[in-house]
């Protein structure tokens, strides 16, 4: 087709073609900045579809998307399912507790069996780090990592970056504070990789026993006091706190944790006036974040959810078909 437009004023980036270099989305650590930009730009275009009366486009019609969740999740799985359905794909949800895993089938056998049914994309959440990578190496389908242990959760980081970019115009140069159990948080890890790649000044904060040992090599500033971490922050990202991990109590009590590390109407004043407050959900009201902050004017928590569907639609689109 011979039509090409010349230049005209438009706020949007003009691209002629777009492609991701890998067949899978396993993590942010190896994702180049220009591919992150591509995913975020594409996601913005997909947002509009969810505002239509008929929230569907025929793009992935006839494609099969399988969600394979070995860890419980309603939010992430539903988000992927809505994303696939809005692209007209067929979705199948498999939960570990109801599947053959209970009967002792290994991950690899489960995956090979699925492969033989010819799905197009498999989305996997597993408690073991690297599970998605194993599937990606074995199967020809595109694999999306929906969370592997404490390792990565790339789609969460992407939707967080989209939200920040939308609210602040850019990610570069922003001061972003991530507060919580950094060591056990795949959301923190993926966000750290992504936000530092995009040029933000990232600060992490949490109790010492919740800080990963290699945090010094991750290109972030480390604080053990909220007040220091969130001072002048443009973005504050609170992580869900789980006191019990692998049977060990990491902190004496929720109240003590909340006293030191929760975001409330007093300490939020240390951040910039137009600070945005983020949380991957589900929120522990009164623990890491007070209800008035969670529901207040700085909170963009619900926008994160909306952006989650858009980002997942963008990824499903970009990873589908057309690969030579």
């Amino acid at each position, binding site marked *: 087709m011979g*039509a*090409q437009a010349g230049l005209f004023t438009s706020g*949007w980036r003009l691209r002629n073609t777009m492609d991701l270099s890998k067949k899978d989305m396993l993590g942010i650590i190896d994702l180049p900045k220009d591919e992150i930009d591509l995913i975020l730009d594409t996601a913005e275009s997909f947002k509009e579809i969810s505002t*239509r009366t008929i929230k569907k486009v025929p793009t992935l019609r006839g494609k099969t998307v399988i969600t394979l969740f070995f860890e419980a999740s309603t939010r992430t799985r539903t988000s992927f399912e809505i994303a696939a359905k809005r692209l007209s794909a067929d979705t199948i949800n498999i939960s570990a507790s109801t599947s053959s895993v209970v009967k002792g089938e290994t991950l690899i056998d489960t995956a090979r069996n699925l492969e033989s049914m010819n799905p197009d994309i498999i989305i996997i959440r597993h408690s073991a780090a690297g599970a998605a990578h194993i599937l990606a190496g074995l199967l020809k389908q595109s694999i999306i990592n929906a969370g592997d242990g404490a390792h990565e959760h790339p789609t969460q980081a992407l939707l967080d970056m989209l939200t920040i970019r939308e609210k602040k115009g850019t990610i570069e140069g922003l001061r972003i504070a991530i507060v919580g159990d950094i060591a056990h948080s795949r959301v923190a890890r993926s966000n750290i990789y992504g936000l530092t790649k995009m040029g933000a000044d990232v600060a992490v904060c949490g109790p010492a026993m919740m800080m990963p040992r290699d945090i010094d090599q991750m290109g972030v500033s480390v604080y053990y006091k909220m007040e220091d971490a969130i001072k002048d922050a443009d973005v504050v990202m609170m992580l869900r706190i789980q006191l019990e991990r692998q049977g060990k109590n990491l902190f004496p009590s929720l109240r003590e944790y909340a006293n030191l590390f929760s975001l409330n109407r007093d300490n939020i004043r240390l951040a910039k006036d137009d600070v945005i407050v983020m949380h991957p959900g589900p929120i522990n009201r009164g623990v890491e974040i007070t209800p008035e902050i969670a529901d207040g004017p700085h909170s963009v928590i619900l926008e994160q959810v909306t952006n989650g569907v858009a980002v997942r639609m963008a990824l499903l689109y970009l990873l589908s078909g057309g690969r030579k």
Partner: protein
Amino acid sequence: MDAEGIERSLTRIAYEILERNKGTDNLIIIGIRKGGISLAERLREKISAIEGTEIMSGTLDITLYRDDVLTTGKRPAIEKTYIPFPLDHKRVIIVDDVLFTGRTIRAAMDALMDFGRPELIQLAVLIDRGHRELPIRADFIGETLPSSLWENISVNLTDNRDTDEVVIEES
């Protein structure tokens, strides 16, 4: 075709649209993707100026409705679709720069049907270069340019309208 020729064609098309539709009631001008957007804007300006009323307009990106969206090696970029009103009972004029195989227009009509049930859809193009692969035709045409399949026709519109041009190249 040069800048003056483009300008005259657009003026004629604007009058034709008004004549065929007997005015601007329920008229919406929607530009397709990249090529049709600035043409749609110019048509909208002209029609508004002639009739003295504002005309509703929108933009449509048809990438997700293409019949080759997942099979072409490199996919075209998705731009924004902006149709902030339902299309029920509206007279939709879709605008594109070059009409060729007709597949873009087929995709555009499928997309528009998801926004409501228009009263009618009419097509305005600057250039009709023939070689239709689907039974699609334009209602308003700037110029019919017979072409060979080895040629590439581009409509280059710029903010400085003096340098608008239609270019035919060997591809």
